[in-house]
């Protein structure tokens, strides 16, 4: 009881110090921010529908990049996650695979996009590869952990039929993990659609480029149209993944 109180008090104190250092208690500044928010909002309405053809095209490019990047990253993450599964491979092999995934994950997706712009030039190809790279790093770790959590009894039972490692991957790890595999790849797709709308800032294709132009030229009513389009796509994705989950996920009625 006493220690709980102590912990709560010190966490609250720490939070207070951090917030004040970040400028959260600077009243004058916050008031200015609030006023600016009002101005910005009034500058954004009504959204300028006239730019729909241009932004629509950029949006389509973003969606394409996200789908292709997520799919490529997903496919590459499967073998890497299998190699990272300690039930199947020696500590050296699985450790190396997990290290590669961790190294890829350390680099944020925006930085990956910059790297690929340098490697393959400006445009959506760089963006797609950047998304794919980040996706590999993330999914390989999630899936390796997932595979390692597979019920050991199933592995013992199917293993005792003389099944090979490849057989176990195909007939135990993948079907047993199917729910989580699908959920995670859908989550990644949603994340990538949001993330990829910013990749255009570094010249990696998609909506970001249009957003950047509207921001720099202070055309906030056009920017509003872009933001609304992103909202529509994210909502559509939510609906789509909910439908996919309902359609394909295993439901335990027993």
């Amino acid at each position, binding site marked *: 009881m006493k220690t709980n109180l102590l912990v709560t008090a010190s966490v609250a104190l720490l939070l207070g110090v951090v917030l004040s250092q970040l400028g959260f208690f600077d009243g004058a500044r916050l008031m200015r921010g609030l006023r600016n928010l009002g101005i910005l909002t009034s500058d954004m309405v009504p959204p300028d529908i006239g730019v729909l053809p241009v932004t629509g095209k950029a949006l389509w490019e973003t969606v394409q990049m996200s789908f292709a990047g997520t799919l490529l990253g997903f496919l590459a993450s499967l073998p890497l996650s299998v190699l990272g599964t300690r039930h199947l491979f020696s500590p050296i092999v699985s450790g190396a695979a997990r290290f590669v995934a961790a190294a890829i994950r350390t680099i944020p997706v925006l930085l990956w996009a910059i790297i690929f712009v340098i490697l393959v030039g400006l445009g959506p190809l760089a963006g797609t590869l950047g998304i794919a790279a980040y996706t590999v790093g993330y999914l390989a770790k999630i899936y390796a952990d997932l595979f390692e959590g597979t019920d050991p009894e*199933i592995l*013992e039972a199917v293993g*005792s039929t003389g099944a090979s490692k490849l057989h176990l991957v195909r007939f135990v790890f993948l079907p047993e993990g199917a729910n989580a595999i699908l959920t995670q790849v859908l989550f990644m797709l949603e994340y990538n659609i949001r993330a990829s709308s910013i990749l255009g800032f570094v010249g990696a294709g998609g909506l970001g480029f249009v957003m950047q132009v509207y921001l720099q030229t202070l055309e906030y009513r056009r920017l509003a149209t872009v933001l609304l389009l992103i909202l529509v796509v994210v909502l559509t994705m939510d609906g789509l993944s909910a439908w996919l989950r309902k359609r394909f996920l295993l439901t335990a009625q027993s």
Partner: protein
Amino acid sequence: MTQEADQNIALRTDGLWFAYREQDWVLKDVSLSIPLGKVTIIMGPSGTGKTTLLKVLAGILRPLRGRVEVLNQTVEKQAQRSLSTLIGYIPQQLGLVRNLTAMENVLMGALGRCGHGKVLLGVFPRREIEHAKAALDLMGIGHKSDEKVIHLSGGERQRVAIARTLLQRPRVVLADEFVSDLDMALALEILGRIRRAAQQEQITFVLSMHRVGLVRESAEHVLTLSHGKVIPGFPAQGVQGAPGVELPQ
């Protein structure tokens, strides 16, 4: 020992010792013989080491001392693939893949004979599919072959697990707490099917069990595991009163 004895013994252990933690022995000098082509039941209350013993017999756990021989071949020396022609193992929770159908789970039994070509695409040889159908029919659930395991009842899952082992065609089947979770009538029906399979396919079954009533009804040969040792026949006084064990009348 004599030639005759060897021919009637499916499985034999010789001074088996096993511990999960140092000096904390679960199996202490276990020596046992399992007769060929019969249903042997290993009794004992929960926590006495039945699961551990079956895993050591199946080659999943390595004994710290002693060895296991199946049909006069030492288990430890076998590669997993050739061991699978000798021993089949059904864990307590059956180890079925829940997201696959009954049929697909039964086909897992054939993996030791399958390569990596079409099988990885989910296409099994026609001959194996025929055998899997026959095994499901033998267990009386041919009509459920396209159901996912997660949608099957406990008794149906037990039958799928046996069918998978029948397709594997091992000489000895080790099944942990088999039918322990079923009611008496259903348990006896499934055990009857096992006995018929044992005769028909010349398979030796070793089942672990903690319900004395069920054992009395079904066993051809009973061993009792008590305090890390195996003794022939029914439990001695000390074991009967232990939790999880029904007293014999």
